[in-house]
């Protein structure tokens, strides 16, 4: 049908959007509220469960920056996550630093790893890129297994500090608060990238849809992909940095576990990859389900749950939970 027969649609006013500063402020307020509620509950298990869920919020949000915004599926999330965990082990042991500086180091290590991976693999696309990132996980795990300084295949014990920062009464509570802040920051970073007026989110969306057309429109696709791998890598490593202190022990098989790689992909897919809210929703739903299954059925059921939910969503709601709402809104 030619447009001559179609009446022109009136131009819809652009929806009012919250500014970046306001969103960061909202995230900070939400983080404080979550910390206050958890402090009110005051249960060690509540701290543990919240830490577990929020670690996945950081991991899924980080994965989505490259996988969702740019369309590059990274199967090596576990490598970045474990790189963060082992940075805490190595830096903690070498320099005796506390958790917060270790997280900063983990961001640097993850960012460098992401940049390096990007430089080596970003000329690959689709399945080839995914396989390359999977290989990264295998290579890193082999290195860690053979690195006795961080415990090698036996793993490493990390003793929680005795002094607990004010106003927390237990280290579990402090650790949980740190992860709450990390999750809020991750969400704010993802949203800033997505809605950036400088065009990073627009550019990533353009290259996700058509890389050659994006180049023709002036988008420096390689540079943008490297920025995305670096930020995504840094954030995934940050997600893993508190892991050794969470269980006081870390070993390669669990740090590089399949669950992290699968969950990092499944959570954004289930929530919806197009927006910052998708990975948040997916992570909260899926990680809570897994935590509930762990305490009621068995931790062995975790991946089964992820698999079943993922199959259901891929078939019934390929654009995730957010996609369902958008459909309903039309």
């Amino acid at each position, binding site marked *: *049908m*030619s*447009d*001559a027969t179609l009446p*022109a*649609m*009136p*131009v*819809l006013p*652009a929806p009012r959007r919250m500014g970046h500063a306001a969103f960061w402020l909202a995230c900070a307020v939400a983080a404080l509220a979550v910390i206050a509620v958890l402090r009110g509950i005051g249960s060690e298990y509540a701290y543990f469960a919240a830490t577990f869920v929020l670690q996945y919020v950081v991991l899924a949000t980080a994965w989505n920056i490259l996988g969702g915004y740019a369309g590059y599926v990274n199967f090596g999330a576990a490598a970045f996550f474990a790189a963060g965990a082992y940075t805490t082990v190595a830096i903690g042991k070498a320099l005796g630093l506390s958790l917060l500086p270790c997280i900063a180091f983990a961001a640097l290590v993850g960012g460098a790893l992401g940049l390096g991976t990007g430089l080596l693999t970003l000329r690959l696309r689709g399945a080839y890129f995914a396989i390359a990132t999977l290989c990264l996980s295998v290579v890193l795990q082999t290195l860690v297994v053979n690195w006795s300084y961080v415990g090698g295949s036996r793993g490493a014990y990390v003793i929680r500090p005795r002094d607990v920062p004010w106003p927390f009464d237990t280290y579990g509570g402090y650790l949980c608060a740190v992860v709450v802040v990390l999750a809020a920051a991750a969400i704010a970073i993802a949203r800033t990238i997505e809605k950036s*007026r*400088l*065009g990073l989110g*627009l*550019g990533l*969306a*353009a290259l*996700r*849809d*058509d890389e*050659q*057309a*994006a*180049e*023709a*429109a*002036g*988008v*420096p*696709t*390689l540079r943008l992909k490297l920025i995305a791998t670096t930020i995504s890598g840094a954030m995934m490593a940050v997600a893993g940095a508190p892991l050794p202190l969470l269980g006081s022990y870390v070993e390669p098989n669990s740090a590089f576990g399949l669950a992290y790689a699968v969950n990092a992909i499944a959570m954004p897919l289930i929530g919806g990859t*197009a927006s910052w809210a998708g990975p948040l929703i997916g992570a909260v739903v899926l990680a809570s389900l897994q935590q509930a299954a762990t305490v009621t059925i068995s931790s062995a059921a975790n991946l089964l749950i992820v698999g079943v939910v993922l199959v259901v969503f891929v078939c019934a709601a390929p654009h995730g939970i957010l996609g369902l709402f958008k459909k309903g809104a039309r």
Partner: protein
Amino acid sequence: MSEVVLRADGVGKRFGGFTALSGVNLEVRAGERLGLIGPNGSGKSTFTNCLAGAFPSHDGGFTFKGQKLAGLKSHERARRGLARTFQLPRPFRGLSVIENIRVPLAYAGRHEATEERAMECLESVELAGKAQRMPKELTQVELRRLELARATALKPELLIADEAMAGLSHAEVDQILALLFRLNAGGTTIIMIEHVMRAVTEFSQRLAVLVAGKKVADGDPKTVLSMPEVEEAYLGR
């Protein structure tokens, strides 16, 4: 006579053992409307891809506004004012119509990526009323117009319109032609690659013909179309 804006010097491109382009020389002057024609497989799109930086050329090279383009990536060429459209429309399907225009505005580096500027681009192709629609809601001719709007958002000095009229009806061809004339009147040099001969003859001030990767004719459209080698390329012996 106006200055030469683009010069191709002996451009050659091979794909394995197949020679797609061989020693192509071409000059395009500022403000000119050049038609580049040739049968399927003659190397027109390869020429476009080499010029736009999607493929590296094996021999020769291009000079655009007095500067050599060798080594420049596609996006750097686009930012210097060399825009292209694609044979099949390639909108960013996950972005709305106006966001499709905001991409070149944000990255071209020469203009502000404001809502007003994006709307101006859409108005120039009569798509302002569909600014918030998604590309999948557009008709074929609207997709072609979006493609042109995205290219013109770069404020190009040279636009390569690669088969912008393929598959369109008579009236739709006229719409796109009118758009291209308007762009040219605004100072944009245009290379039209086209199979719709009516459009090519109506639009072009000069015609260049590629056959099997070689330029066989270059000149006034009437003279070129009556040349025996051009007739032979299109109709056979």
